[in-house]
């Protein structure tokens, strides 16, 4: 059973802050340790900002999971230009936007399950899950 997720719009830096807060709240509720809370919030911050900066805005879903284990899943979706070469985007230091190029690969290291589905111009969905 999965409780109904929170859906949050991402259209400004303030929205990124709101996503961070929502993730922090959910992580605390689920009883994640302080280290894991911090990892989740940081990953959320990276992915929400990618949605905003590279995807031109979109939304985030924060899903509390009960099966097969307790956990928190973060889903980020946008309909921007997409990621044509996902493997390359994961490489540390690869950036098209003047960042450090660490956000995507770093987020993958901060959680347990991570996936990127991107059909350029149609839909980009980044999913990050951390189990308790």
């Amino acid at each position: 059973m999965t409780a109904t997720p929170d859906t949050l719009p991402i259209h400004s830096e303030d929205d990124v802050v709101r996503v961070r807060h929502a993730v922090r709240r959910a992580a605390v509720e689920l009883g994640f340790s302080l280290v894991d809370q911090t990892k989740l919030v940081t990953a959320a911050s990276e992915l929400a900002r990618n949605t905003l900066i590279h995807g031109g805005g979109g939304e985030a879903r924060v899903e509390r999971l009960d099966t097969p284990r307790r956990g928190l899943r973060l889903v980020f979706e946008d309909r921007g230009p997409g990621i044509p070469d996902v493997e390359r985007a994961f490489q540390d230091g690869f950036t098209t936007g003047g960042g450090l190029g660490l956000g995507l690969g770093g987020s993958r290291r901060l959680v347990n399950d991570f996936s990127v589905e991107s059909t350029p111009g149609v839909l980009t969905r980044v999913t990050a899950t951390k189990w308790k």
Partner: protein
Amino acid sequence: MTNPDQRILHSLERDPSRFLDVWLGEQAASGTMRRDLISEAELRTQSQAFLSALIAALRSGVPFEGGSNHPAWSGVRAQLEDLSRQRAQRGFSFSEVATFVFSFKQPLFSALRESTDGGTELAEASWEANVLLDRLGLYTIEVYQRSRENIIERQRQEMLELSTPVVKVWDGVVALPLIGTLDSERTQIVMETLLQRIVETGSTIAIIDITGVPTVDTLVAQHLLRTVAAAQLMGADCIISGIRPQIAQTIVHLGIDLSGVTTKANLADAIQIAMERTGMRVERQAPGRTP
């Protein structure tokens, strides 16, 4: 009388002081009158000044256009600007500000009825009065809105500056305790404040304490690294302190390279390092010895 707004002028000129009284009565009865925020005497002075300025502007025969800066209307514009700014500062709402101009309509229509022969002439004059007052009303709202934005912007700037105090710890050592989110704009101010204090105090060491920064992601890291690089260019070495264990782990997982920067777990350790580097030594006095 052929010149359009001249009919308005004529009706106002007939008995300005009676007109002023009727208008003040209208404002007082409007329900949006804020006696708690403005005194009757002040309102009278403002209304009087506006009426005189309006009559002077109408005498010029130049029509009022919202966007234009024609000198003939500068007096009216100045009156409305002062009024809007003052009311924005005192916390008047939109409609409470607009009332000033819109309450002018009823008395003006009455005055026009008295000063024209009625019929077509009155209809035309009323229309002109409507157009003029709507424009003046919009202008007032615009200025009010701008004043409000200025106030909010100023408060925001003050908050930003308040939240970035750079303290002198010791000769040659400044510290900047950061609290809250470090976004691009805030970083800019942090950087400027820090660099300025480094120069003012002739410091060679700057401690940036991030105990109060809840999340250190790649953007925050990038901002921190830029600040460190800028301080270095000013001849000051940076120490980043307040790296909590959970933040340290996240930074490592993200792959952020802080190897070029001295980092410390807490501010006390950072201060000790800074003292040592500037040739100081802190030691506990041996027990029993008094200076």
